[in-house]
């Protein structure tokens, strides 16, 4: 969705798409960063690669 919005921004140059592109890119970065932190936290607590997962 982020890439599609970036492409639409490129094609139309509409301010709405510029805003949405920044919003989605920011959200995407925040989500991936959050997941990296959660994964590293789980690794540090030895909660990953355990039986039953």
């Amino acid at each position: 969705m982020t890439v599609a919005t970036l492409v639409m921004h490129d094609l139309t140059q509409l301010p709405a798409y510029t805003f949405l592109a920044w919003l989605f890119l920011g959200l995407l970065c925040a989500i991936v960063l959050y997941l990296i932190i959660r994964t590293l936290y789980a690794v540090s607590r030895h909660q990953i690669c355990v039986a039953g997962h």
Partner: protein
Amino acid sequence: MTMHSRLQNLPVSFFSTVMGLSGLAIALQRADELWASSPALGNVVALLSLLVFVVLLLCYGVKVVRYPEQVIGELSDPVKMSFGATITVSLVLLSITTLQLAPALSKALWMTGAVLHLVYTLYALNTWIHKTDFEIRHMSPAWFIPVVGNMLVPVAGVTYASPEISCRVSCACLSICPGGLTLFRWRR
């Protein structure tokens, strides 16, 4: 817990981390092209995702050699089986992230990923249709991974192969979803 038992329990779904990082890299690379606002950030994330993939592939390769029964169990499990496609989807995504960075590597990744993903999609479809111990409660959003992964093949595919191949892969993906799921529900 020992290193051996950790390796034994390394889930194939761990490759989804590469999918997430590659997706972020593609978006950042695209933003970089448009705004020049995040110079090299997209490429850094692309290289990071490649590094994570190599490390995971080595670890999972050791698991395949040492604990083949665990791998077979994982790839025949009704729920975990779909996550096997995260390896091939990662290859296809990495071919997109390296499209400008390293075209030769990108082409090799795309060819390997596209062929392996097609094989895995056929394996998954065959299992869903013919295996009798699958139940309706085993259906999960993860089932979309092998099927929807085909939608990514044309992204780099139009650069490395004829557009007809990309078109057929996309059409196959679009037709598998409704057809396959309807067939599965009917057979249960």
